[in-house]
């Protein structure tokens, strides 16, 4: 494939919604189990890090530590939900369950299928954010004024990480190899995106690197500012970054999957 072809806009139809619906139906079968992680995880982290570790940490930028990490927990959950949905889970559906093969024998095309998967991945992020906001609010760690804006933003952040996951699904030789991007990309992001300490604590070159190449940095920035009940002009840059890179990777991931699956 010519490099330009990887960014050719794929033709996706509204039928991709049927794939979204299929995944939603599977999700709903285990709804209790699926709702447990976004409900429980923030509680565990907030108790351990926010109130435990937080005792030893002075406030950050005038904000108590628990309040500082609470929005990062939402951002991390947005990342994990869609990345894992569109990496391991999509790979299982594609390779082991042959679900995609079955669907492309119907009027749906492979582009529709992948678009449906990506939409579903982003939806998982939205679900997690939606469950976590009230839990964190119960602890009094989020200002509710703009907090609902986090939900639509979680969709676009989710799309970005869904696309990242799908790109790896498209190029991974086997399911074990998805461990590499998790170890080398997702885990460092979890730690170095201004999640548990401000980026300014890192050397300046690393700060620039994180801003340029670690998508989670922007997601954390946006959700943190919204959760403080503020609006700031820096939001425009972060949101634009997420939208622009997200769209580019969405297109790339669909084209990479097409290359993998059309033989």
């Amino acid at each position, binding site marked *: 494939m010519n490099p330009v072809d990887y960014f050719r806009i794929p033709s996706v139809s509204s*039928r991709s919604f*049927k794939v979204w*619906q*299929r995944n939603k*139906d*599977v999700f709903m*079968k285990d709804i209790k189990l699926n709702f447990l992680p976004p409900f429980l995880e923030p509680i565990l982290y907030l108790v351990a890090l926010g109130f435990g570790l937080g005792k030893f940490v002075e406030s950050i930028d005038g904000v108590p530590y628990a309040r500082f990490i609470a929005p990062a927990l939402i951002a991390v959950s947005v990342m994990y939900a869609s990345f894992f949905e569109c990496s391991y889970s999509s790979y299982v559906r594609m390779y082991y*369950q*042959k*679900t995609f*093969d*079955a*669907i*492309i*024998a*119907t*009027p*749906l*095309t492979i582009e529709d299928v992948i678009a449906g998967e990506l939409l579903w991945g982003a939806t998982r992020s939205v679900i997690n954010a939606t469950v976590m906001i009230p839990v964190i609010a119960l602890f009094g760690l989020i200002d509710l004024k703009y907090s609902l804006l986090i939900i639509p933003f979680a969709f676009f952040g989710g799309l970005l990480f869904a696309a990242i996951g799908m790109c790896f699904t498209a190029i991974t030789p086997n399911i074990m190899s998805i461990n590499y991007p998790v170890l080398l990309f997702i885990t460092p992001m979890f730690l170095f995106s201004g999640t548990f300490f401000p980026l300014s604590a890192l050397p300046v070159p690393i700060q620039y690197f994180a801003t340029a190449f670690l998508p989670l940095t922007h997601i954390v920035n946006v959700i943190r500012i919204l959760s403080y009940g503020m609006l700031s002009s820096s939001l425009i840059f972060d949101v634009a970054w997420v939208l622009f890179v997200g769209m580019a990777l969405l297109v790339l991931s669909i084209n990479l999957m097409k290359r993998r699956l*059309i*033989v």
Partner: protein
Amino acid sequence: MFGFLGPNGAGKTTTMRMIQCVSPITGGTLEVLNMDVSSQQREIKSLMGVVPQENNLDEDFTVYENLLVYSRYFDIPKDEAEKRVEELLDFVHLLEKKDVMTESLSGGMKRRLVLARALINRPSVLILDEPTVGLDPQARHLIWDKLRSLKKQGVTIVLTSHYLDEVEKLCDRLVVMDNGKILVEGSPTGVIEEFIGSDIIEAENNPELLECLRQKEAKYEVIGDIVHIYADNAREISEYLVMECSLSKISARPATLEDVFLKLTGRSLRE
């Protein structure tokens, strides 16, 4: 009903995938129901049912849900879909399994469910890639019955199979292919008569017999310890051979597609 025969790697599945609009065609033109596979994929696929070589049922769902979820991909309204699902489960004798997860079905049941799934959109063309591979005789006969009744309803059926008796029983026309090329095309009986004759006499291989056959200019083939003699009238010829060529152990049987297949594609192992 049309059959594609050929050894492993002959290009049968590739042909099937091109007909299904899944694999791109690399040359020439291919039309299904007078529509071009490159430009009218959605239209073609909405009128087609597919039974793939590998069962790809949705393991996350029950038998019933499998068909219902699949019906959505064809935009079949829910009421109508529910009616069809019941009918189809009845048709393939799986009604009592409707709430079972598909992974706990037997091989035969899975195959029947895949067939039912392929019929959810009432296709005009049904594509089957080795529909009865790995099934017990009961399950194979049930699938054959279903295919015959579909044929009667006017469905065009295209299948590949390594079971040549299956193709001989079911197909009206067939091609034998190898290395992506069609070697022969015709009806099962037509092809057999053209390449073998109606009967085959099997005799023990010995030099005297071969010499005798050469003199009589008979059509024959040596396969290890035995000789196949191709004939149109087995009884007369075998009597004649017994008298003229001092044959001892011989047996005569009707020629089958398998004989044609082996003659055309050779006896050496593939892959």
